[in-house]
């Protein structure tokens, strides 16, 4: 069966520091991968998605970037964090073909102080 991992689970970082969040998927190949941010425990905002290694699409202009160095690895990064980057970051995957639902990881709670 497929599983999705995110780490770290929680992170507290000072303003201006760098960020690296990692997401990995097991049990599937060539998935679509997604990064979302959830603010204040409510709506989801799609940040990036990827349909293959090295292929990244950005949904909103922001202080963050994403990379996909391997088929089942998706990384969210920032060179300098802002207070507004605080939130709950969720990674998700979807089969490239067939099933349409996305499956979510456990999330990373980021607090920028």
């Amino acid at each position: 069966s497929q599983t999705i991992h995110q780490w770290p689970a929680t992170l507290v970082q000072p303003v201006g520091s760098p960020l690296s969040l990692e997401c990995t998927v097991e049990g599937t190949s060539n998935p679509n991968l997604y990064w979302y941010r959830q603010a204040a425990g409510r709506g989801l905002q799609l940040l990036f998605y990827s349909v293959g290694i090295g292929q990244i699409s950005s949904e909103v202009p922001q202080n963050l970037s994403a990379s996909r160095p391997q088929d089942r690895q998706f990384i969210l990064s920032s060179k300098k964090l802002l207070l507004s980057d605080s939130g709950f970051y969720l990674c998700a995957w979807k089969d490239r073909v067939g099933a349409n639902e996305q499956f979510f990881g456990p999330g990373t709670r980021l607090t920028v102080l």
Partner: protein
Amino acid sequence: AQSVAQPEDQVNVAEGNPLTVKCTYSVSGNPYLFWYVQYPNRGLQFLLKYITGDNLVKGSYGFEAEFNKSQTSFHLKKPSALVSDSALYFCAVRDMRRSGGYNKLIFGAGTRLAVHP
């Protein structure tokens, strides 16, 4: 414009009573619709989906949803609520503006379900 609306910020239900969480959508073409549940500080869990076929879709944990094309709705239902059903519920529709591998989902703002003993 494509969108999903969850008109209720919160729904309060007594344990054992039926529950309904409302969702309406606006999308071109035939919609692909989804429900997810989120418990505190956890990721979203997939509950059920409607792609085609029967308008009543059954999913996990005893939940079901009814697709109504004329009303552009996809309400989530459960005959008898449990306290453990208390969580945040999201409705989503597939973004139909692109084909191929993108398959983005458009999420509603979420509805908080509180089931009281």
